[in-house]
């Protein structure tokens, strides 16, 4: 269990958050720039002094202002990956990696040098100096350096923000491997929902220093606070599923989600693998009857559980597609009236296979 409660007054806003999540896992701190994410992370690391703070990882209390406990930064064993990597410019990659490893105050190191080098693909870089690395390579080295300090917790403060899209794509798979292969809890700060979608097991949405909502991504993805940040267009339900079957010749995979099957384009899918998909609200079509003769690959039966009227004359309709899986569709008020939509009404959800964003995601049993 990771328990964090921080209060800190700043000139422009007050930070006041409380988070309690199971470990290990990846907690995404999501919010606009300037909402206090970095301040919070710095308080967790101990680099900033909070007015009141409680930080505990499992049984280890790192800070408790109430009980006058404050473990110094250098003894917290928190691996911090900064937005700007902060590699030591006067050392080789190898020396950077060894820096934390050598100082790890721990009897039984659990992160091995060769493992990290293999996990992050650092073998070719070991003898180089930081200024000879690309942005993505720098971040991989920074990740390795933090991991080798044998951390109890990893703090990743927008590690991809300084990278362009292709470089980001180059580092993301390593982050996924890190999450899946090492049992270290991760706090991941981001203002890119795409990264949250791919990495998080628990999402904390922050707004002006406070928590707007938090929980598993399935629920948070439908929350209005998230919508306010990502924008109406990018809003959509996120669901976890398991690949039931796949067809290598077409690249189409059948994913078991809720009580139904969703077909999506996942070329390297393996049956039984966990995936996470996002169904954007604007891409969903609702039908009162099963339809025939359309190109849409997915037709899922469900029940309307919630209807929310939006300001600009549209409606958000949440449909339960079985086993607690809920998708959300946006349609015009006119369409809703024409179909006579109401709560508890059985409905068909239609979505094109190409509209679905899918990512392999090994869901932990927590």
């Amino acid at each position, binding site marked *: 269990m990771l328990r964090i409660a921080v209060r800190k007054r700043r000139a422009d806003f007050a930070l006041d958050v409380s988070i309690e999540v199971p470990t290990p896992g990846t907690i995404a701190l999501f919010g606009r720039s300037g909402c206090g994410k970095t301040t919070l992370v710095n308080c967790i*690391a101990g*680099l900033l002094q909070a007015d009141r703070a409680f930080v505990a990882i499992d049984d280890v209390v790192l800070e408790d202002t109430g009980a006058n406990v404050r473990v110094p*930064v*250098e*003894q*917290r*064993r*928190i*691996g*911090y990956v*900064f937005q*700007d990597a*902060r590699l*030591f*410019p*006067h050392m080789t990659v190898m020396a950077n990696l060894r*820096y*934390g490893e050598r*100082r*790890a*105050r721990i009897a039984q190191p659990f992160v091995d040098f060769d493992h990290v080098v293999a996990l992050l693909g650092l073998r070719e870089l070991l003898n180089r*100096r*930081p*200024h*000879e690395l690309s942005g993505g390579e720098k971040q991989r080295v920074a990740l390795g*350096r*933090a991991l080798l*300090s044998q951390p109890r917790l990893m703090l990743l403060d927008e590690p991809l923000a300084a990278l362009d899209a292709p470089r980001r794509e180059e580092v993301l798979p390593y982050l996924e491997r890190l999450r899946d292969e090492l049992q270290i809890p991760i706090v991941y700060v981001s203002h890119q929902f795409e990264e949250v979608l791919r990495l998080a097991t628990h999402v904390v949405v922050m707004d002006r220093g406070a928590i707007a909502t938090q929980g598993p991504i399935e629920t948070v993805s439908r929350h209005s606070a998230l919508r306010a940040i990502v924008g109406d267009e990018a809003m959509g339900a996120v669901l976890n599923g398991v690949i039931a079957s796949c067809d290598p010749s077409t690249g189409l995979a059948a994913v078991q989600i809720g009580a139904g099957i969703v077909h999506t384009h996942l070329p390297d899918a393996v049956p039984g693998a966990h995936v996470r998909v996002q169904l954007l609200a604007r891409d969903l079509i609702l039908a009162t009857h099963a339809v025939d003769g359309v190109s849409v690959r997915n037709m899922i039966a469900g029940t309307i559980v919630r209807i929310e009227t939006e300001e600009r004359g549209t409606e958000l309709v949440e449909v339960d597609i079985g086993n607690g899986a809920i998708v959300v569709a946006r349609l015009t008020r006119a369409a809703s009236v024409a179909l006579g939509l109401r709560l508890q009404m059985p409905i068909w959800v239609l979505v094109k296979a190409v509209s679905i964003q899918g990512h392999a995601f090994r869901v932990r049993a927590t």
Partner: protein
Amino acid sequence: MLTPAELDAVRLSLSIAARSVIVSLPIAIVVAWLLTRGRLRGRVVLDAIVHLPLVLPPVVVGYVLLLLFGVRGPIGQWLDQAFGIRLVFTSSGAALATAVMTFPLMVRAIRLSLEAVDPGLEDAARTLGAGPWDRFFTITLPLMVPGILAGAVTAFAAGLGEFGAVITFVSNIPGETRTLPLALYTALQTPGGEALAARLASISFALGLCGLLVAEFLARRMRRTLGR
């Protein structure tokens, strides 16, 4: 090529400048640290004191040193009685006078390099388990090396030519305190010494130029290793 007296002057100048740099370097690093990162209250005062030799006539500095480190002076008397060290009229005294005069140059260079060190790197080292001294010696100090080298070489080159404070504090004793500029001055005071003066001036010129070139070369090399 050079007469023994000239050689003596060159050797003395080099040795006095070198000793002054060795003595003042660690102090300059500490002072630069206090001025940049220190949270002490008298920072402005310390800054002013450090820079005083830049604005005072060198003779005044030599005179103050004489008051403090003379055999009757408070520090000089103690050094003499406790350790038998006499600074007046010795080459050690010349090194001290040179160190005081070149100190501001050195502190400036080191301070600039310390200000250029990203505190974020020290924070990173901290999260990796490095305590304060560990951070200073493994991160901050190595990153300051370009400035420290530049400061040391500049101070050394400037120290070769220190005149006013040296002649006031330790006089002009051949073989003990008669450095290049003092020898040059003596030559100019002696009838028929113009040729010697010209030779000594050329040597000073060459040494100073070498110093500056070395400083530049070192700074470039360091910048390359650090990738700046």
